[in-house]
């Protein structure tokens, strides 16, 4: 038998990226920014969104897509803070959300009646970084109970994010975490990273975060 070589040169992510482009165009047409929240499990993605829905949900029409390997617990938690639909995606073992899941979830969301979309990815600092979901930007969360050098250990997530949200600053008196070192590690990986400091417990703990969100909404309206 003769062996024949077929030249392929096709990116493995081509189909996902094609679907992501469709999502991006759909969001663009509707003028809705969408943020993909990525972090290790327990960094506080759901807690941040709970407070955000509770505090801004009346003024800003926020839709949420949550991804978890099992259970729709996060979606149930978030649904307590909003009358709007929270789309739960159970990945059944997969370690990340992909563009098809997001495109399907967005199909159930009325984007014309939405100002802002959050996609809460599966808690995992490795795999979600590789999947473009069609989002406006990736936001990576890092809590002060983790190691300051996580950006060096998991560089892809920090390299592909535009924004870093440091969470749980209320715990600073109880941990040996150095904010300065964490920011230094993050900027070493991605010098353009915008860094926000947050706490869902401290008074004014989310002011920087809300300022960031308002700026995104304002920018989109002005466009």
């Amino acid at each position, binding site marked *: 038998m*003769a062996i024949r070589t077929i030249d392929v040169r096709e990116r493995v992510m081509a189909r996902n990226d094609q679907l992501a482009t469709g999502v991006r165009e759909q969001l663009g047409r509707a003028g809705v920014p969408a943020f993909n929240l990525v972090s290790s499990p327990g960094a506080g993605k759901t807690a941040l969104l709970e407070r955000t829905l509770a505090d801004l949900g009346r003024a800003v029409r926020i839709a949420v897509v949550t991804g978890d390997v099992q259970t729709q617990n996060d979606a149930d938690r978030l649904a307590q803070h909003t009358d709007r639909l929270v789309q739960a995606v159970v990945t059944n073992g997969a*370690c990340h959300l992909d563009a098809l899941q997001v495109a399907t979830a967005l199909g159930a969301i009325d984007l014309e009646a939405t100002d802002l979309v959050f996609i809460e990815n599966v808690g995992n600092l*490795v795999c979600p970084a590789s999947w473009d979901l069609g989002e406006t930007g990736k936001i990576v969360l890092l809590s002060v109970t983790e190691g300051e050098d996580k950006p060096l250990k998991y560089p892809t997530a920090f390299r592909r994010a535009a924004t870093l949200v440091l969470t749980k600053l209320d715990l600073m008196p109880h941990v040996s975490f150095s904010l300065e070192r964490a920011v230094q590690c993050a900027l070493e990986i991605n010098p353009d990273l915008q860094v926000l400091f947050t706490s869902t417990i401290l008074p004014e703990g989310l002011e920087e975060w809300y300022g960031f969100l308002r700026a995104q909404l304002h920018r989109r309206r002005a466009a």
Partner: protein
Amino acid sequence: MHEMSVALEVCRIAEERVGTDALPTVRAVGLEVGEQAGVEIGSLTFCLETLLAAPPFTGATPVIERRPGDVLRVSYLEVEDGHPDD
């Protein structure tokens, strides 16, 4: 864990290129994987070997070349052309 998703997509691309009927004739699958592609080579090799050993494949070999950057693509397929060449 996402190496299995990557491996499944590689198999889908192979099927798209050669057609379902020709999948048993695939002998090798060439891949380029960047150092920063977020893919663990041992895990990807294991997933590909497992998938390529099961029907409709008949034991094709994954051939992975490391590259700088974050490239992740199927570079070539080797297939038996179905005609005896002797």
